[in-house]
């Protein structure tokens, strides 16, 4: 048996509702595909081995590390990144609004990952405790805030989303 498999593949993905078709190397990480092929640089790359959580995106609605995910594996699936959060150019998603109001970010490097993991978490837990939020973001590192304001922002966003 010779040459099973290929080093390149054509993939079709839907990112933030927009369909794309690209030929990519099999070894291309989803994080690099989003940033370099699609120009969606909102997904940040921190550690590239699944520790920091900055690259978290939603894969068919569930949070995944895009640095531990091959772009070819996304073929036929839907991805959501931080660029897809806001409903329009002039409006913010309740999570973004809460992070702004509660000072849930300083340098902003971890923010896209925080927002994406919290989006999935709040969809399943609309009325979370502080403890549950801390557990939900335990895989996302922030070196600025000490997490306090991120947790407050998440609580505030949950409230905003329940009211709307």
């Amino acid at each position, binding site marked *: 048996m010779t040459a099973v*498999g290929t080093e390149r593949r054509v993939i079709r993905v839907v990112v933030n509702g927009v369909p794309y078709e690209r030929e990519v190397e099999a070894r291309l990480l989803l994080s690099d595909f989003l940033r370099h092929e699609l120009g969606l640089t909102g997904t940040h790359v921190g550690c590239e081995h*699944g520790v920091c959580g900055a690259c978290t995106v939603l894969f068919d609605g569930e949070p995944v590390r895009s640095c531990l995910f091959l772009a070819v594996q996304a073929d036929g699936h839907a991805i959501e990144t931080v660029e897809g959060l806001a409903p329009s150019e002039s409006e913010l998603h309740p999570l973004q609004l809460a992070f702004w109001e509660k000072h849930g970010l300083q340098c902003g490097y971890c923010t896209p990952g925080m927002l994406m993991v919290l989006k999935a978490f709040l969809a399943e837990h609309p009325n979370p405790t502080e403890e549950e939020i801390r557990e939900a973001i335990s*895989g996302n590192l922030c070196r600025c805030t000490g997490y306090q304001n991120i947790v407050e922002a998440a609580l505030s966003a949950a409230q905003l989303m329940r009211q709307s």
Partner: protein
Amino acid sequence: MKPPRFRYYAPHSLEEALAVLAEMADEAKPLAGGQSLIPMLNMRLARPSLLIDLNGLHELSGIELDNGALVVRAMTRHRAVERSPLVAEHTPLLAEAIRWVGHLPIRTRGTVGGSVAHADPAAELPGVLMALDGTVQLTSRRGQRLVPAEDFFIDLLTTAAEPDELVTEVRFPSLPSRTGTAWLEVARRHGDYALVGVGAVVSLAEDFTTVTEARLSFIGVGGRPVRARLAEAALRGQPVAAETWRAAAATVRGEIDPAGDIHASAEYRRYVAGVLAERALALAAERAREGARQ
């Protein structure tokens, strides 16, 4: 921090996957959830020339009961186990331990078979499998075999699986009545690899005052999950009492031989293993009583 070049193959059936694995066993790596393999590729610790992606094989996914045993197929995600009412009802130790596996986005992707095949000595699933005397089903083109957890886990990242074999399911046997279980763990942050973790299984006599059987399975204290056989033997026939659990903790500290590393010294691990054993035994015994009352 980018993977080296490899060829990628996504089989459409288990049969196809096994055929390719049989031919290319030396240079191929099966890709399950990728939560351990892809970091190893990114850091160039692994350089397979072919990745066989199992993620499209839906026949390898699912949770069911078979003759009273809970059967979890290999590509079942940790999240599916976490959400499964069947797991919560039949194998509460697995339901309790699975919440400690990685973080939410890791559990979304990580698989039961992948964790077992990777055999990290600080990972929860191998510890649960050892505590419950579970078995691992291995499948290759040559056939299928069931390997008890005790024989499957050999050492650090080393298992009884041959290069052409895939882990296709794991089985968690049912427990006798008047039995309780508990999973406890100490980690730096929730979701980090355990410094020490323990699964306890305690069965009580009809009057609920005597231990008929107890098992203790530790993670993070050796190259593989470790059963504290001396403590288990000493617990048989002992009264359900705080002194019994305390004595077991002392036996545990004497029989395990953890290594120290950057995260925790050997002495610390040995001490914590005793503390966790004491607490887990008490909790498991309490649950054995509560379970019988319901």
